[in-house]
């Protein structure tokens, strides 16, 4: 069963909310930079930067990080995932970074992203921003900013679609657990 949690208008409001959370917390931070986790964290970081740039003199640089090579389940996967590559063109040493992803779930992606970021340099601080926090963490990792916290089952799928990657803005939850039960009954 699939349910829409947010339409385009609501997604845009959530992005605005996330941007204001980040802004409030980092008002006096000079060397702020955003790093989006591929793939959907990247357009999200771009949108946040566009909003954050409005009240600032200097533009906030945006980087992209692909965590595939740092995944902890790489050797368990049956097939090899495509590596899309990271693009961080600015020096992260001494900067305050905001790591951006669409959904925070187990925390394993974030762990991988932190390991990778630290191989790029030694930032002053790293904060975590996510559009949706859906719980079920498997590591001691919590977002500093989350625009929406939703209760989910472990087996649910929460999908965020963004115009840049999917042609539309939408947040959708799919209950797979119940679907499986129904299947079993049939």
């Amino acid at each position, binding site marked *: 069963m699939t349910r*829409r949690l947010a339409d385009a208008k609501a997604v845009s409001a959530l992005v605005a909310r996330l941007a204001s959370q980040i802004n409030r917390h980092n008002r006096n931070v000079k060397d702020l930079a955003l790093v989006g986790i591929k793939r959907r964290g990247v357009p999200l970081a771009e949108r946040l930067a566009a909003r954050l740039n409005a009240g600032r003199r200097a533009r906030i640089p945006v980087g992209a990080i692909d965590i595939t090579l*740092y995944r902890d389940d790489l050797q368990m996967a049956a097939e*090899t*995932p*495509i590596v899309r590559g990271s*693009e961080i063109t600015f020096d992260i040493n001494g900067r305050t970074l905001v790591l951006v992803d669409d959904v925070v779930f187990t925390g394993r992606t974030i762990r991988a992203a932190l390991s990778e970021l630290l*191989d790029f340099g030694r930032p002053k601080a790293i904060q975590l921003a996510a559009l949706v*926090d859906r719980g079920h963490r498997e590591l001691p990792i919590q977002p500093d900013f989350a625009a929406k916290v939703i209760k989910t089952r472990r087996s649910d799928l929460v999908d965020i679609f963004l115009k840049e990657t999917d042609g539309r803005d939408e947040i959708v939850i799919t209950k797979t657990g119940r679907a499986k039960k129904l299947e079993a009954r049939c």
Partner: protein
Amino acid sequence: MVQCGHGPRFRVHEVRSPEPAKSGVQNPESRVKVKLRSRHLLGIEDLDRSEILTILDQARTFREVLDRPIPIVPALRGRTVVNLFFEASTRTTTSFSLAASRLSCGCVNFSKATSAVSKGETLLDTARNIEAMGVDGIIIRHASPGAPHFLSRHVKAFVVNAGDGAHEHPTQALLDAFTLREKLGSLDGKRVLMVGDITHSRVARSNLLCFSKLGARVAVCGPPTMIPPDIEQYGCEVFYRLDRILDEVDVVNMLRVQQERITSSSFPTVREYRAFYGLTAERLRNLAPEVVVTHPGPVNWGVEMDFDVAEFSRALVLPQVTNGVAVRMAVLFLLAGGEGEVRS
């Protein structure tokens, strides 16, 4: 559940989706996987165009890793490969060792000179013994064509052909294709001329197959004694005079005169070879402005190329070496990633 940020929680009304999500659209990135048909890399002959492009596209992301402040990723942590080299090599062994270490993959080097091969141990015994010590992959160079293929049928580890006699040298072809694609964008419709000893060159065979599969038109040029008689079956043109074709191509791929493989004299003197088939300073000056020059190395300066080529801005000899590490990382990653059983 953690409540983050300040202020009231944002309310979004929940709308029923008009149509159920198709199973294929969820978490698309997690489903984008790549798989080569074979779990070994034995030759370009076994790869199709899309597999070659997969390796080259992955190599581009690994090329970026090499430019990082810490150019090491943990992708193959806990894996080990062995460089089983029965023939001399500096570039290829070093390149594979570096590729492995950049992926956090252990790498053991084996060279024929210091091994029990001198006590009469067979290839299969050597490989099985090394495999028994727990290696995941074997990178082999051997003077006998087909040695990697033989090995791949008898060991559980994945096998990478790093040159088997005069047969194939697939990673060299892949890194040449990678370097040319970086420079020219695509090989489709490009004219590539390979000059030199086609008969004895495994690089020539692999490059010919690789460039053709990527859509390039390949021509070969060399003394008649160094061009196999049936070469046209690969769909390439043959030229015996370099100056007739040199101004019509986009890429000049020079090959090494392999003095160790030439048994009977294939050309009268080195000076004559240079005069007819060498990329001399004079020929270099007359090259069209977009033409690029590649050479698999090691170069016999003054034979197939004059030293002027080293200073030539469109010679890709050193970028080829750098890209070789990225391409070999991609190959190791694609072959060693994932579980062995599933890939069989």
